[in-house]
């Protein structure tokens, strides 16, 4: 019973925050809502026994990506970007496609019979072992990707000095 309540609360938080993130006219509120939504997803991870992943989600997504976005919004907004009129003309089509996609997925899930097996929640050690053995090459490739992204982002965003 407490599990159900927790699940319900987290789901409501997640989806509500997601909606708020998408619908809010104010970008900073969107970013904050994104943060809550990601927190909710971290909660869903936790509820499925993926502790480590939950922590990583918080650490990287919420503590890193969300901060970046909030940061960016604060800086961009400071430059006088009007935040009004946040939705474009594609709204009806977007609603239709989003809803259709969701409906199809949900219906598909509903119809399919998923055979549950005894849950296995791998611990931190298992994940670490997998990362440094089975998935070593993708792991290293990922680190190279991150480095490249870092350098590339610096290069792209660098002020060439012509404008303030």
């Amino acid at each position, binding site marked *: 019973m407490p599990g159900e309540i927790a699940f319900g609360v987290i789901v409501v938080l997640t989806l509500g925050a997601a909606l708020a993130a998408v619908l809010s006219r104010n970008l900073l509120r969107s970013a904050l809502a994104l943060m809550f939504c990601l927190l909710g997803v971290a909660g869903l991870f936790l509820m499925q026994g993926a502790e480590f992943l939950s922590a990583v989600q918080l650490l990287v997504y919420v503590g890193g990506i969300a901060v970046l976005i909030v940061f960016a919004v604060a800086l961009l907004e400071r430059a006088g970007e009007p935040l009004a009129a946040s939705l474009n003309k*594609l709204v009806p089509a*977007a609603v239709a*496609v989003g809803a259709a996609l969701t409906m199809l997925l949900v219906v*598909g899930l509903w119809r399919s019979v998923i055979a549950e097996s005894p849950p296995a929640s791998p611990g931190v050690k298992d994940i670490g072992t997998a990362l440094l053995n089975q998935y070593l090459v993708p792991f290293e490739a990922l680190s190279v990707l991150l480095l490249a992204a870092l350098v590339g982002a610096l290069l792209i965003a660098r002020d060439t000095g012509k404008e303030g």
Partner: protein
Amino acid sequence: MVTEAPASALGYLWLVPAAPFAAFLVIGLLTRKWRLLSAAISILAMGLSFMFALGAFFSQLRLGILPRIAQFSWFDTGTLHAPAGLLLDPLSAVMLVVVTTVGLLVQIYSLGYMAGEKGLSRYYAYMSLFCASMLGLVLSGNFLQLFVFWELVGLCSYLLIGFWYDRDAPAFAAKKAFVTTRLGDLGFLVGVVMLVTQAGSFDFAEVARKMSVEAWDPKWTGFAALLLFCGAIGKSAQIPLHVWLPDAMEGPTPVSALIHAATMVAAGVFMVARLFVFFSASPDTLAMVAQVGAVTAFFAATIALVQDDLKRVLAYSTISQLGYMMLALGVGSVTAGMFHLWTHAFFKALLFLCAGAVIHAVRTNDMREMGGLGKSMPWTAATFAIGALALAGIFPLSGFFSKEMIITAAGAKSGFLATLALATAACTGFYAGRAFFLTFLGSSRSKAAPHETPWVMRWPLVILAGLSVCAGWWSGGFGAFVFFGAPEESSLHFLSSFFAMLPALAGLGFAWMVYVNGSPSPDRLARTFAPIYTLLKRRYFVDEGYNWLIDRVVMGFSRALAWFDRNVVDGAVNGVAWLARSGGAVLRILQTGQVQHYAMAVFGGVVLLILLARLAGAG
């Protein structure tokens, strides 16, 4: 070509064409900027090639006449077998020596002649490619390879004739050479295709075997051979496709030497000798070859009588000598034809290089502005004299032996041909003497101060002069080495031979009278025989005839075609283009440039795909 020696005996023969080709690649890709390095690479490669060619020649001499073949299957389409590889027999061995010797000497000579030239690297790259193509041609054992190298030789002569492409005359001359030989090559290609498709193989030996086994119709084979001969007419500048060769004088003189002595024009003669088995199938074809050769020899020699340009005299003399070779082949003596090619290579290279030295010294081609150069250029004069005497066929120089062989062979077949050959010999004597006397004797008419050539140019002359003297003494052994059918005995009978030398001596003597003694004077002669003189001076109006033909007939037809092309063909193409463009103009409305529209399309597409999959799954 029935029995073969083991292929492994060929050893490093592949290096002979490969070394100059590698030099071409290295120069073209790497050392363009360092001109002297390029020259050194080219000469070194040629030297290497020369060594291996000599090795191949002597090993072949030891082995006798057995051909050695190293071939692998290049591709095989089932109905058509194309091998690739090397073929070494006496014929190619002789050619190897000729090409590498002349090529090496010419390249060394060029060091002096082309000194200070800006495009020296380009020059040596082309030279290397030229030699490599010719060597590849010589070593070809099948039609495909032969054709490829045949065309490469044509390409290289185009590049080298047009070496000074920034001037009009060389550029036109190069184009003319290319287009004219292309006319002959068309026939050659058709001939090759006829033979190859009939036999189902590119291999010479295989085609020849099929021909004898399946007993092809001699008329048909003869026709194919005639088409092959078209190629030779173009390459070896026989009438009526001889017009490119005199114009090719616009290239650098060492290039002329190479083209005339060893590479380009020799290719035609060599090809006929190589494929002689097909020519011999039909007596009519052979007769045709002989007639073309004899007529070419005579007409070219008469034109050479009156030319003022030193290089043109030599050019027409080349055409004439090539006519001799064709005549020899036409009367069935491969030995005579190839032997004349062998001796001619040395003395004609020598003459051209001497001419180059003279031109280098006096900065003009016109013999009327030379004269008296014998004093200031004794080496050149002496070597030129040797070359001229060899050309005239004076005993005991090399030209005597080969020409003798040809006249004997022609005399055995037809009196008319022999007469024509003797008349040509007289003309040869006259123009050879005329060239020497006008250039080196008498008083100086030159504006420049002539000087002896530097040693890099002098030594090739001396070596070639030596070869011009000695090359003919091998006449006895040559007949037992290079022949078609049965070995030919040396047919030198002293009495008749010296009788055959008489016309040449007479021509020389007449030249002496006219140009040294001055009685009768050249001008009087020209006035006396004015119509003939003009006819010869204008080279029988062949070029004019071609121009008229092209201007009126071909161009008129072309204009009609051009109209059709512009209005009908282009109209269709433009219509298609218009359709595509207006279609694009409509379609590009879809490309809004808005990322989100594209994203929308992607997600919509996903939805559609899922729906489709569901429907298909349900159905």
